[in-house]
Each structure stands twice: as C-alpha cells, then as structure tokens.
C-alpha cells in the first residue's frame, strides 16, 4: 500500500489560528474537516495543493481542490461571506481547471471585506477524513501565501473509497 505525505501550503498570508478559534461552530467543531485557519493580510488567494479545481463558486468566497491522490482540500474565505454574493471577490480560475500549488485562484478586496464580512478568518480543511491516515500541523504563528506549509497529510490508500 502506497502511503505518502501531501503538503498543504498557506493560500493567504497572515496569522494562523486553530480551527477551534474560528468564529463559526461548523468550522470550529471540524464538521467541514480538520485543518488550520489563516487570518489573512494578503489579497491573492493561491492554491494550497495541486490538483483539479473541483469547486470555485461564482461568489468566489471558497475554493476546493481534489488532489491526484483523492484528497479534498477546501479553502473558505471568511465567515458568512457567501451572503456577499461575490462582492469583494474576483475568481482568477475556473471550476474544472487543473491548478498547481501556489497558483492564484481568487483576488480579494481586503479593505472592502473588512467592512462587509463578519470575519475574514479563512479555514483550510481536508473534507474527506477517510483519506487521512495522519495530519501534522507544521505552520508557525505566521505564514506566507504559497511559500509556507500549513500542515501535511499522510494519505491513506483509497481502494474501496467511492
């Protein structure tokens, strides 16, 4: 059985937070998945892993990537930002695209969002825990987008996983 590590890099620069400190119970209780959050100070969201861009809604407030190993990584910019209906977000890629870790996906109007969004805290989570053998947080207190790793995942073999 081939097991190996996938490194998940920071999609935005900023200060890191544990998911438990994200101001939304669904993310804080890891119901979406396990991972780490970033309180952002940069305005271009980059891909945290390489793979297929499974999800980039028109609202531009989230991005989901499925790696070649079948790991699903979701980045969700801020809390309740779906309600802004795209205001402050400019998608730079299309759903279905193949993307490389570090590739720009969404431009973010930070100043506008600071005024309009309840929170800009951005969880980065693995949404299919069945594929996670082990997860190790590697980020320090601050991370740079596309450069610093947030965490790494030992991927479990996907045989029999739909």
């Amino acid at each position, binding site marked *: 059985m081939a097991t190996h590590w996938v490194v998940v890099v920071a999609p935005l620069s900023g200060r890191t937070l544990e998911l438990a400190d994200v101001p939304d119970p669904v993310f804080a209780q890891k119901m979406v998945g396990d991972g780490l959050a970033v309180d952002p100070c940069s305005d271009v969201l980059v891909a945290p892993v390489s793979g297929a861009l499974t*999800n980039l809604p028109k609202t531009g407030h989230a991005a989901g990537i499925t790696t070649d190993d079948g790991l699903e990584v979701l980045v969700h910019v801020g809390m309740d930002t779906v309600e802004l209906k795209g205001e402050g977000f400019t998608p730079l890629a299309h759903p279905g695209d193949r993307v490389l870790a570090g590739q720009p996906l969404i431009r973010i109007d930070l100043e506008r969002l600071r005024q309009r969004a309840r929170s800009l805290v951005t969880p980065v989570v693995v949404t299919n825990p069945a594929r996670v053998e082990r997860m190790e947080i590697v980020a320090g207190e601050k991370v740079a987008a596309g450069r610093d790793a947030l965490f790494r995942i030992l991927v479990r073999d996907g045989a029999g996983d739909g």
Partner: protein
Amino acid sequence: MMEETVTIRNPSGLHARPAALLVQEANRHPCEIRIRKGDKEVDAKSILGVMSLAVCKDETVTLRAEGAGEQEALRALLALIAGGLGEA
C-alpha cells in the same frame, strides 16, 4: 434503489455549512448515496462534490440511495433538508 427529489430553501443554497451538515448525515449511512442537479451527479458523502453542484435557493436536487438502509438514509436526509440544514 430509492430516489427523492427535493427543493433546497436555504437562502444561499448548498454552500459550505449546509453541505457539511448534509454530508455528515450521509456518512452515517452505509449505503451509497448520490445527489444530482440537472445532468450532474456526485457522491453525497463528499463536501466538495456537493458544493460543486452549486445548488442555489429554490433549485431542486434528486437524492438517490442504494444499499443497506437506503430508506432510512433518504428519510434522514429529507428531514434534515426540510429542517433547513442548520439555517432554519
């Protein structure tokens, strides 16, 4: 195999939070569960899959369950959707 079609009433459709709750319930059931909008069908046990359907308010989706406990699974999911998926 059982199928049910249902209208999503959440103001912002099946975005991250309601999708997470739907998938969490789907994962409690051993049977295969798929969700379809138009001609796109995905695994209802995958959050990214469900979000990729981009279901908006007042759009309909079809849930299909197949295998052990399919009836119970569909009933639980329909009840969750009727209850507003945590946003009622």
